[in-house]
C-alpha cells in the first residue's frame, strides 16, 4: 500500500493524526500538545522542553524529504512517520541525529521522549544496524 499522498507534506489520507494526538495526550511526559498546522505539532513536555514535531505518512522518508520539510516549515526537533506502511531510511536517521533531531515512528517517539537526548533513541533493529556498521 503506497502512501496516501505522495508529495509534501505527505498528509494522512484521513487528513488528521488523531491516533498520534491521543497517544500524546495519554503520555505521562507530555504536558500539552498544540496543532500548529495540519502536519506540525508543538509538544510541551513536563520537564519544560518544547518540541516542534513534523508528522507525515511518507512511504520512504529519506534525507531529501527531511530537507524539503525544513525548507517548508523551518527547523524541527523531531519527525514522526505515522503509518505502519511507511518508513524512514537509516541515512536520514543518522543525518538527523547529527543535528540533534529525532526521526521515529509513533511508538519510537513515545519511547524517545522519556530520554533527555530523545534524538538518540534507537529501536532494537536500528541498534543492530548501527552496531554492524560501527556507527556508535
Amino acid at each position, binding site marked *: 500500500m503506497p502512501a496516501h499522498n*505522495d508529495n509534501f507534506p505527505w498528509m494522512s489520507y484521513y487528513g488528521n493524526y488523531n491516533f498520534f494526538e491521543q497517544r500524546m495526550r495519554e503520555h505521562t511526559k507530555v504536558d500539552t500538545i498544540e496543532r500548529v498546522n495540519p502536519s506540525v505539532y508543538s509538544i510541551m513536555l513536563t520537564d519544560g522542553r518544547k518540541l516542534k514535531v513534523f508528522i507525515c505518512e511518507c512511504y520512504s522518508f529519506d534525507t531529501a*524529504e527531511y530537507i524539503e520539510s525544513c525548507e517548508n516549515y523551518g527547523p524541527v526537533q523531531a519527525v514522526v512517520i505515522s503509518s505502519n506502511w511507511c518508513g524512514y531510511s537509516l541515512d536520514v536517521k543518522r543525518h538527523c541525529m547529527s543535528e540533534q533531531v529525532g526521526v521515529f515512528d509513533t511508538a519510537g517517539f513515545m519511547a524517545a521522549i522519556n530520554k533527555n537526548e530523545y534524538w538518540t533513541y534507537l529501536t532494537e533493529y536500528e541498534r543492530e544496524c548501527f552496531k554492524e556498521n560501527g556507527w556508535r
Partner: protein
Amino acid sequence: MSIYGFGSYFKGASAYQDIDLLIVHNSTDYSACLAAISLKNSILQEIGSAGVSILSRVAELEFDFIQRSQAILLVEIEGSYKDSELMELFRKVNTYKKT
C-alpha cells in the same frame, strides 16, 4: 540522478490515481538533495497528477524500492538536469501507455 516510473500507470492499468515517479540521487549531501527536490518540483509543474518520491542510492538499496515496486528506468541525468532531459522524461511518461 535516475528517474523511474512505477505503480498502476506503468503497469498499463486502465485506471490509475496518479503517475508514480521515483528520483534516485547518488549522494546524500545537501546540494544533491536540493537538486533532487528541484527536479521533483519541475516534474510536478508539468505533470500535476504525478506522485514523486526521492531516495538516495543507498536508501533505495535499503528499501529495495526498485525491485519491490518493479520500477522502470525512464531517464538518467548526469549532473544538473537540462530542459531537454526533462522533455525526454515527459515524452516517455506521456507515451508510455501507448507502447
